[in-house]
């Protein structure tokens, strides 16, 4: 044998019953079987007819859903807005120019100017960057905490699962916003990181619960049993067979949590707990506009529209994703 042999790498067990088969004989059996029957069997089985792919199928279903497609485009447009506008604009968002204060929307300033004469188009876009950044970061954090907690509970099952879930039940009672506020108070300052922590701290419960349910259900599948039967160890099964199959759910959840987080940040900012100036988020921009609401409504209206735009589009995308990834009964 010139090549390393399959059989040589699995030395036969030396049981007391002398049942081990000699290496060479096993290998020979294999090759004999191949030579003799493989082609006949292949013909018997008939051609394998590969059909559509999983993700491709989902993608098509998503595209067929008009609401989702519109939402996806809206979302991407908003993202493009916040990324490109500050880049392309010549306006200095931090320059104070009181002569230009409170200008309503015009060609020079499509979104108008604020009390300090700063161009609101660029400020809104920059604010959007902050909102998006906080949103994605917090969502990511929520996902990580929720997945780890939920997957651990679901995978280990039994008493650990019981304990973790009962504890989670207790946590559910925590009111989300007061906790966020308390967290910010504890930190003493509101910057990007503290805001992310505050938003995460009381929002990961649902994700954890759903992940636990998913893992629990997926565990019942035969292919998980098969993995154990083959000799796979826990971590491999958890990663390769369970988590991988929750990807669909995770993606949907990302788009479900995102709006909540953004809204939470906006709310906190509106209460005055927003990110410190001169950095702005949509929430703080809205808060700025609050005082001048009567005379200059556009200052509060515009960031509010942006927030609403983001939330709506994210929800519809999540909806569409959920439908698209739903394993429907196949047409046989």
């Amino acid at each position: 044998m010139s090549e390393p042999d399959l059989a040589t790498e699995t030395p036969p067990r030396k049981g007391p019953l002398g049942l081990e088969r000699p290496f060479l004989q096993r290998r020979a059996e294999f090759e004999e079987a191949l030579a003799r029957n493989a082609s006949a069997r292949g013909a018997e089985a008939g051609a394998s007819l590969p059909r559509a792919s999983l993700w491709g199928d989902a993608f098509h279903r998503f595209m067929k859903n008009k609401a989702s497609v519109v939402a996806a485009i809206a979302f991407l447009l908003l993202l493009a807005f916040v990324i490109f506008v500050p880049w392309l604009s010549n306006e200095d968002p931090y320059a104070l120019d009181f002569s230009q204060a409170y200008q309503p929307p015009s060609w020079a300033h499509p979104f108008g100017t604020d009390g300090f004469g700063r161009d609101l188009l660029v400020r809104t876009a920059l604010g959007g960057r902050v909102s998006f950044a906080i949103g994605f970061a917090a969502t990511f954090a929520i996902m990580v905490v929720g997945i780890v907690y939920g997957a651990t509970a679901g995978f280990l099952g039994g008493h650990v699962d019981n304990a973790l879930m009962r504890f989670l039940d207790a946590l559910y009672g925590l009111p989300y916003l007061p906790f966020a506020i308390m967290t910010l108070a504890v930190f003493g300052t509101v910057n990007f990181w503290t805001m992310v922590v505050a938003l995460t701290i009381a929002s990961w419960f649902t994700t954890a619960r759903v992940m636990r349910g998913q893992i629990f259900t997926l565990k019942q599948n035969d292919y998980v049993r098969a993995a154990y039967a083959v000799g796979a160890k826990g971590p491999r099964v958890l990663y390769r067979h369970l988590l991988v199959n929750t990807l669909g759910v995770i993606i949907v959840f990302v788009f479900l949590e995102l709006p909540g987080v953004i809204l939470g940040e906006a709310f906190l900012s509106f209460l005055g707990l927003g990110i410190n100036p001169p950095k702005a988020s949509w929430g703080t921009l809205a808060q700025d506009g609050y005082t001048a609401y009567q005379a200059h409504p556009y200052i509060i209206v515009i960031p509010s529209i942006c927030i609403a735009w983001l939330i709506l589009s994210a929800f519809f995308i999540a909806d569409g994703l959920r439908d698209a990834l739903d394993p429907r009964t196949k047409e046989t």
Partner: protein
Amino acid sequence: MSTTEPQTTAGESSQKGEPLLVVKNLKKYFPIKKGILFDRTVDYVKAVDDVSFEIYPGKTLGLVGESGSGKSTTGYCVLELLKPTAGSVRFLGEELTTMKKEELRRMRREMQIVFQDPYASLNPRMTVGNIVAEPLVVHKVGSGARRRKTVEELLEVVGFNPDFVNRYPHEFSGGQRQRIGIARALALNPRLIVCDEPVSALDVSIQAQILNLLKDLQGEFGLTYLFVAHDLAVVRTMSDDIAVMNKGKIVEAGPAERVYTQPQDDYTKALLAAVPVPDPHRMRERKEERRKHKHALAEAL
């Protein structure tokens, strides 16, 4: 209800030395728990209740019964995929029930399983190639090119076109997926394969293909099968010996020919009578048979 001793199970089969698998007094009880905060065990579901049998190398033991009889659970317990509540499972002369985890993992190379549901037994997010290679990966057998070649050979042996290693299971029909599952079971060249209803979910004409495949593989690789099924005709065509299970117990066991032609136990007789036979001329006779054994077929609620 006669329960034959394990020794006579393989009575007429030629005995080449020692049995490959000896199961003695196997029990699997599932606790029924009740309670609000803390679960108390109030009763047990006796899925497997004192089951014993032996299988000799190269033979097939058919484990037949209806749903709830405990046959699949028995199969899982033998492979230690479920931990038996009590009893002994000696495979290749070694006691599996008391084995340490690592030792058991290495033993798994010699005992594999083919599942019933071709749609649930393959991870939908793994390619066919990866699925079949998993046993090799987990036990660190071979590497890279050598593994790939082995996977292709395995697929060929089961009649699956190896060109499609990079495809996903859902792209194929039930019969083909079952072949993938069989290839996976063969990957480490095991001695024992537990077949858990391997053809129940397949079309009739595909069933025949897979059964033939399993028979051929048994001859080619000297495999021993524990064949679990509810279809009496299918079990007949595959088995040397039969054990009939009802409510967790073996009610009758013996060489297949004998059990099918001269059943001793009432339940076995009723079971055999209930099977619809594709011969319209025997309809009346079959219905008579069934009426005779009606008392043994109390429908439990």
